[in-house]
């Protein structure tokens, strides 16, 4: 059901935008506190300091904005990583982003007793950046060129290394496990708008840069030799992609913790709709990523009410059935 002409792709994107706005609305209106569309509307028109209005303005709206930004960013980095490594299994996690961030947060928590979400954000971003840069450092060293396989393997090794440090720390400090488990599963709960605002500039730069390089990504997807033959500056391009991934995935993990699944699966979803042209694929993946995370976040509030499930858990639970359906439906590749 891959859409063929630009006109229908345009409509698909438009539908995506409408669905995204709709999901944001659902995310703002529904939750544990009893609110309705009516109260939501009133909270904008005549704010009266009631509990419901406060919840909508200070909790739900930031949460909806964060979920859509994080979902979109993760999906875009997924597309970039899968093209960069030419591997359908790649995700931002392959650059060591999640493992690095997780390690940094657990480390800071155990040795410096830091526990506020605001400081987690910067520590996570730092950890993600360090891990990703070391993956690039390893892939760019050595005599031969930077092949996709080399980046993949270096990334897998670095991720495993950081993940094992994290597990080692948690195994020797079991008391901390309970506190950090929720962060490690990824969640958009309880984040203030300030966290988003401090990371937003990086995300916006990442989104715009991803759109700008999308035609070049099409060339990169043809393989290193062809791309070089067509005049693409491979080294520069790969560094650029790496930087965008650090900005976007690092920002996302800083806000919400390591949310899996979106980065790896949403690009495949998007490909089933608009094909492999990155100029369409990147915006489509961004929209789908935002929608999936918003809906997963709403579901996360209802499953074991009044407790919440980490949204990282719900993305997989909601996304998997759809994905299996799509993977089976598409013909042989």
């Amino acid at each position: 059901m891959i859409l063929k002409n630009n006109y229908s792709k345009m409509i698909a994107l438009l539908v995506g935008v409408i669905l995204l706005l709709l999901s944001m609305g659902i995310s703002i209106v529904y939750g544990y506190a009893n609110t309705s569309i009516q109260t939501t509307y009133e909270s904008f028109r005549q704010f009266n300091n009631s509990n419901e209005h406060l919840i909508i303005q200070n909790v739900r709206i930031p949460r909806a904005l964060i979920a859509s930004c994080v979902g979109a960013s993760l999906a875009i980095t997924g597309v970039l990583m899968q093209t960069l490594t030419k591997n359908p299994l790649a995700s931002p996690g392959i650059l060591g982003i999640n493992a690095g961030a997780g390690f940094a947060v657990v480390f800071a928590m155990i040795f410096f007793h830091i526990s506020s979400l605001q400081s987690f954000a910067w520590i996570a971003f730092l950890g993600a950046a360090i891990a990703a840069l070391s993956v690039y450092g390893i892939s760019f060293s050595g005599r031969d060129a930077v092949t996709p396989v080399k980046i993949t393997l270096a990334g897998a090794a670095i991720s495993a290394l950081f993940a094992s440090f994290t597990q080692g720390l948690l195994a020797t400090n079991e008391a901390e496990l309970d506190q950090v488990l929720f962060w490690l599963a990824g969640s958009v709960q309880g984040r203030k708008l300030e966290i988003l605002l401090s990371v937003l500039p990086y995300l916006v730069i990442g989104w715009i840069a991803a759109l700008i390089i999308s035609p070049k990504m099409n060339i990169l997807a043809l393989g290193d030799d062809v791309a070089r033959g067509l005049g693409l500056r491979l080294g520069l391009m790969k560094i650029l992609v790496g930087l965008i991934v650090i900005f976007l995935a690092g920002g996302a993990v800083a806000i919400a913790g390591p949310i899996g699944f979106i980065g790896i699966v949403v690009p495949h979803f998007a490909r089933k709709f608009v094909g492999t042209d990155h100029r369409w694929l990147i915006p489509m993946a961004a929209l789908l990523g935002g929608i999936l995370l918003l809906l997963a976040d709403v579901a996360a509030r209802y499953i074991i009410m009044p407790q919440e499930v980490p949204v990282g858990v719900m993305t997989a639970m909601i996304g998997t059935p759809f994905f299996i359906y799509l993977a089976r439906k598409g013909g042989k590749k």
Partner: protein
Amino acid sequence: MKHVKTIRLLQQKISFLIDVQAIKKLTVICILTLAVFFLSASFGDSFINPFKVLQAFFGYGSDFDQLIIIDFRMPRIFMALFAGMALAVAGAVLQGIIKNPLASPDIIGISAGGGAAVVGFLAIFSDSNHSLTVSIEWLPLAGFIGATIVGCIVYLFAWKDGVTPNRLVLIGISVSAFMQAITTMLMIIGPIYQASEANKWITGSVKSSDWDQVQIVVPLIIVLLLITFFITRQLNVQELGDDTASSLGQPVQKTRLYLILLCSSLVASAIAFAGAIGFVGLMAPHIARRIVGSSFGVLIPASAAIGALLVMVADIIGRTAFSPLEVPAGVFTAAIGAPYFIYLLFRNPKK
């Protein structure tokens, strides 16, 4: 193909393609593994002289040494040896079938299925005081069943006029993510005791192994490894791609099914007792490939030896480094394997 020799047995029913250089390297790795196996018995809470270890092996050691080495240390060393071999070989075979360097038992959902089953087992059979209502000895069975069932589910979902590697992988990662989601959710809903027990299993540890478990696992894994070793030529062919393989006369789908079944049973029997030790299935084959090359005749034994080496050394570190605290072996497999692999990547730029 100067260095390559072919060995054919039983009227060409079984054949191996063998690189003479690689055989030498393989011998060195195997000797190293054997050495670590014996040394491993020396390390622990108290250090025991390797000569005394040898004495104890043949039944001439003091009663105390005998007790520590034969009853306490040998079961876990055996478990580490065989779990490492099984996971590494399963990883090598899967990377051959799927033709993807990121393939490993974790990717196609086998380990995640085992993990979900173990956490589910802990959740279902706990009473209100957080103590188990059935014996913990059933935990491995739960892990085994979970891993096998999820392996089958992935295969069935991926089946549509045959199973293509691409579809297998895509379905595998999403089912794997689903199982991990269930695991995380149960860990968060449940009491902290369950979470830490489950976390131990997911990390992978050979600490609680005893001779009864070894007696079940070792024959099982030996048989599975032998089968794998004798069908390596099918893997060499399968790696050429479906079209080439079928024009060479291989029943592609049937072979693939057998190979996947083999992998699932290898992984399931390893993780049932040792937990989902990560990294070995992914990295041991890559390390082996960079040392002996990619012909499966030598790659399979080399992966097995390196996998065993990784888990055994990780276990030695786990029980000595933070003594008296025991750290699960799964923590150190990556900590020792990754730097070495990065060094190989750095030093030996091969495609």
